[in-house]
């Protein structure tokens, strides 16, 4: 059963049957800019980028984004850059896979962010969402709509952090400005 999350809401990634999740996918989807034809339309493509920053004790250790698709330890993998978006029907246009069991022991938080690489604010982007999927069975665990974006070009969407033996996801929804994740690090630090 999928949960529609609101800002600040936390859900545990423990499974109902007591087992814990082993692999999750953070999906990002948005609707591509409308097209009026191919010639001379100067369609203003919307390029959103999903990134994941791995923190150890509030120090960024590694980052996975379109220029570094796999974390050095191999636990977090980006499936590749989508430059234009999709149909806006709820499918993932970019995805980041996290193998929770293989995350290095010192990493205690992974923060997922979205940036508008082409500079449009979220007001101009339709049907943008991020969601968390149990990668082993494809079930959606949580969905977070990027609505009310306002005059922002980035958002710190959610963090997955250790809690006891398992992991918990917290929806953050903190707006920010920036072209890539580097611009966001100052904004991320307070929410860790």
């Amino acid at each position, binding site marked *: 059963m999928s949960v529609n999350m609101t800002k600040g809401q936390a859900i545990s990634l423990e499974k109902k049957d007591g087992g814990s999740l*082993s*692999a999750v*996918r953070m999906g990002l989807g948005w609707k591509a800019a409308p097209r009026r034809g191919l010639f001379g339309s100067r369609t203003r493509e919307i390029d959103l980028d999903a990134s994941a920053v791995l923190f*150890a*004790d509030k*120090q960024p*250790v*590694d980052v996975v984004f379109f220029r570094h698709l*796999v974390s*050095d*330890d*191999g*636990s977090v*993998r980006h499936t590749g850059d989508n430059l234009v978006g999709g149909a806006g029907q709820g499918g993932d246009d970019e995805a980041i*896979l996290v*193998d929770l*069991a*293989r*995350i*290095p*022991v*010192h990493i205690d938080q992974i923060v997922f962010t979205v940036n508008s690489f082409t500079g449009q604010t979220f007001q101009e982007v339709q049907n943008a969402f991020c969601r968390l999927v149990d*990668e*082993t069975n494809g079930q959606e665990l949580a969905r977070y709509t990027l609505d009310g974006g306002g005059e922002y070009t980035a958002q710190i969407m959610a963090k997955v952090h250790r809690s006891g033996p398992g992991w918990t996801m917290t929806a953050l929804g903190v707006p920010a400005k920036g072209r890539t994740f580097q611009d966001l690090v100052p904004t991320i630090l307070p929410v860790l």
Partner: protein
Amino acid sequence: MAAELMRGQNHPLSRNRIEIRISADVPVVAGVTLADENGQVRGADRVAHPGSPALPGIEVSRQAAAEHRLAVDLGTVSAAVHRVSVLIALPTTPGGLLRFGAVAAPRAAVVGLDGTEVAGYTLTGLDAESAVVALELYRRQGAWKIRAVGQGYAEGLTALFTDQGLPEAAELAGGIEEAVARGMARSVPAGTTQTDRSRRTAASVAGPDLPGTAPAADSAYDARTSPAASGTPAAAQGSTPTGGPVDYTHPKRHQASPPTAPAAPAPAEGPASPVAGDAVGWSMDERLYNQVWGMFEDLARSTAAYRSAVDFAESRMEKELDQVLSDPRNRLGATGDAARDAARARQAQLADQARAALDRDLAQLTAESEVVEPALPPAYARWDNPVWHGYRVPTEPPMAVRLGDLHLPESAPLRIPMLVRLPLERGLWIDSGLAPTADGAFPDAGELRHLALQTAVALAARLLAAHPAGEFGVQVIDPAGAGASALAPLMGAGVLTAPPATGAAGVAEALGRLTERVDLVQMAVRGGASDALPPGLDTSRQLLIVNDFPHGFDDRAVTQLRYLADEGPDAGVHLLLVADREDAVAYGPLLDPLWRSLMRLTPVADDHLADPWVGHAWTYEPCLAPAGSHVLQQVLTQVAIARTKRM
């Protein structure tokens, strides 16, 4: 109900559109000849063969394969044709078999379009024959009949065609041979450099679903490229009674399973037990290659996680200790000690956790390595692997060869095979100089030079063994003749193309010949006329071992060598330099591009190779034959025998 025919027996055929299936233990060439009412084949245009696979009503495969399906539509065949003969021949490729007696009896079957077998015939009792007429379809009173023929020819296709009255029999047989060789060249696996794919992005708990154990060798082409089929024929053929009882199962099927023959993967909780060939690929060769690279990546990443965690634990402890020190209250007394102890304990705890995670991964990779290593084909195997004792000259080159072993300090004793794709894209340089990190344990300079040349010889032997007979040649330049003892295995087996070139004149002559060859190939390729090469040109790949570079080299020779390093690989000329860079210091920066263009290997363990994912410094160790072992000589002897057979 299918009829099983005996030699000479015939059987009525009630339909026109049929398929003729041929299955054999080894790749064979299949063809069809069309004869007139007098039993004569009028010309080469009445023969369907790999070089000309389609005639009206007839279609055959373009290449040699262990299984064929020939399409025949007797309704479309010209009315002048009274007899359709189906022939099978062993390809005369280097390293190939020369007689049907050495393999299990091939089988030909006539099958309807719906897949039902009309009649089949197993060609038992063949011996020295290398070409055979398996079946014929002939007209009898307006209807077609099948006859099991089984007429073999020890002199091959030429004799077969001559017997059928074909005037240009020899030319046609030669043309078929060429077409088959082209087909074989085409079927060498194309470059799929999918090395950085995730093997277990998310499925580490679900257990691998083992695509590798699926009998992907169902098609004849896979079976042919599978090292399971070509790499271990000694055992398979030794146990195959030639011309023995008829075996109606597909002869290839049992060979499609991985050599370690694991039971079905246990879909149990926890990490599934590893299986050799557990990776994607079109052949066992490719699957093992991808699996080894997957293990390489996993070890690189797992170690990255460990090092990152340990570094973090270290830096956190230092920060905490600094804090303790900077607080004046902690300078003296128990609170300070307690805080320091706590910081150290936190560091130790995290380091222990990281080590436990690494140990878990190492255990898994070690278990995988234990099943993968024994399953490796010769080109991928260490010299102490028993697979070398059953070594047979292959019919086609493998995807890659093992240049040595790789490990990280944390991962010892686990060794990852260093597999590099063939043909080699870069030349190799065995560094005979003392490594700058010498800790006194290295042998002295003379011994190191000897060891470097030994490493080069072991590599050359491996490359020779990995290629079909006559497709790979080795030449040696040893200007001062200093390497005679290390070169002995190559010289003794007589596998060198020519005796080692010595002296300045020898160097110039050997380099000149190879340079000319690269020039010619390049001209032909650029001109788009690769068949316009001079007939005398040896088109096999050549490995040039240069010992003691730059000893005996003048400026012109150095220039030629640089040219060969740059342009050679694309034209089939590969370099293997044994050199100490210090010896070439007089050339200054002139030679820097040469050193950079070569892959540096060392005769002793040395950590100088970086992986493509994280960039760890991996320790390389060469693959040498175990002390006192004669495996190198045995393998080279086989190579030499296969080569003389082909001559």
